[in-house]
């Protein structure tokens, strides 16, 4: 048990027996995971969870199912204990290329998202400007997405989804192709967004073990089973779950420089290599 005192509340996201087949070929098999509201006395604590797996293991397929963009062949994903499958829009999605509407300015993009929930234009604008300030993009509101740097674009895409979703943010390979500085900033950003509200839940889908370990409180490792002769079986499932809170490896500044963290990353990587 970790040193930080915490308790688990209601279920925020539930993945139940999710299976997916393309043309009869299994891609996902009986994927199960549950994200519950974490409460830490005396501070706002959101949730950051990660789905790790090698390239081609069906992470993006799972990503699209969690986002409500694709339906699974079997099982279901639900949010906030609702007795129905998740719908597109309930989970904010930030994909690898940080898509934005190129024909709208930053403000236009964000207002479009804000007005999906807030019908009053001035209140929506106030909320947008507040988030722009929070994410150091205040002076960028009249620019078009093509005029933003990669990092600014990423933040803008995150704000857009925060404005529209119900506390969920699903990020596809957020660490891919980033230099060390940008990687650290992205990790900080993920932590910052999760800690903006107790119910905020960031779901990271990635193959970057170290970065995922540095931000997540829970990790699920996805992969394919091998048969007796060592051949990979079709269809990925969750092969291992890691609770970083129990291991006292999260919510601590500088944890990534400790030997415990390095050992943990090594352990996950070893498991990863076997997949």
């Amino acid at each position, binding site marked *: 048990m970790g040193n930080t005192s915490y308790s688990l509340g209601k279920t925020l996201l539930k993945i139940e027996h999710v299976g997916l087949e393309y043309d009869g070929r299994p891609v996902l098999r009986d994927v199960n995971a549950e994200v519950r509201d974490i409460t830490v006395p005396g501070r706002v604590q959101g949730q950051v969870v990660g789905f790790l797996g090698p390239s081609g293991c069906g992470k993006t397929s799972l990503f699209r199912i969690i986002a409500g963009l694709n339906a699974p062949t079997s099982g279901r994903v639900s949010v906030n204990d609702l007795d129905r499958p998740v719908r*597109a*829009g309930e989970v*904010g*999605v930030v994909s690898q290329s940080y898509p934005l509407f190129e024909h709208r300015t930053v403000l236009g993009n964000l207002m479009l998202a804000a007005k999906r929930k807030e019908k009053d234009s001035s209140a929506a604008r106030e909320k947008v400007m507040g988030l722009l300030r929070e994410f150091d993009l205040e002076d960028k509101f009249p620019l078009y997405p093509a005029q933003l740097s990669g990092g600014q674009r990423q933040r803008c895409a995150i704000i857009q989804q925060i404005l*529209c979703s119900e506390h969920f943010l699903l990020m596809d390979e957020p660490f891919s192709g980033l230099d060390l500085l940008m990687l650290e900033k992205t990790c900080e950003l993920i932590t910052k967004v999760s800690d903006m509200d107790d119910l905020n839940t960031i779901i990271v889908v990635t193959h970057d073990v170290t970065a995922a370990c540095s931000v997540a409180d829970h990790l699920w490792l996805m992969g394919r089973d091998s048969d007796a002769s060592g051949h990979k079986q079709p269809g990925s499932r969750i092969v291992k779950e890691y609770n970083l809170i129990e291991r006292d490896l999260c919510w601590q500044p500088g944890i990534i420089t400790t030997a415990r963290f390095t050992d943990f990353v090594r352990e996950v990587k070893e498991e990863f290599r076997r997949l």
Partner: protein
Amino acid sequence: MNHAATVFAPNSVLNRNAIRILIATQVTLAFLLWAFSPFVLLPKPGEVLAALGDMWSQGLGAELITSFLLNLQAIALATVFSLLLAYATVMPFFRPIVALLSKLRFLSLVGLTFFFTLMAKTGHQLKLSLLVFSVSVFFVTGMADVIESIPKEKFDLARTLRMGEWRVVWEVIVLGQVDKAFDVLRQNAAIGWMMLTMVEGIVRSEGGVGTILLDQNHHFRLAAVFAIQLTILMLGLLQDYGIGMMKGLLCPYAALTLERK
């Protein structure tokens, strides 16, 4: 790399001044080549200018206005018709219809004249319908291609922002492709001028530059033919510039990611 080498280097980007100099040099060279060409059948600039003056005094301006207005009307109708049809491809019902219309661009206008004559009540209507048809089949092909090539992630983005499917159509296909629609319009407005002379040659009521062009061509008055062609070219370029300017004003984001802006 020196300037001379730069203009022949692949993917070189020149500054505005260098582009101006390059264009001025090429236009001057083309003019000199024309003026001093040994090809005797080619009318000289002076002859073309004189023919233009003659025709202008004989009412070329009025014919030009007739043709311009007809073309404008045809382009406007073809644009509305084609955009509506292309946008309708979001519904599977309309996809085969649009695909079929797109295939009709291989048909000859001459072969369709009889069919359109039966439907039209006046010469103007006949010319207009022929032009709208011939521009639309190209326009709808271009625009349907634009819509088909929109990446999936744009639709996903709209859906994750809780847009219903009609709102997705509006945001991603209509608003999101306005800049591309201008490009398609620009191409097809030029096709309109190309078709116009043919249509005015087939249907000679109301006159128009196409009728004059065919008459002068028939009598082998090459200086006059050149003069009309140059006039049409100037008008076409002006129209092209106008559409380009409108695109720049309404879609300032379109050029932001271009290398050669």
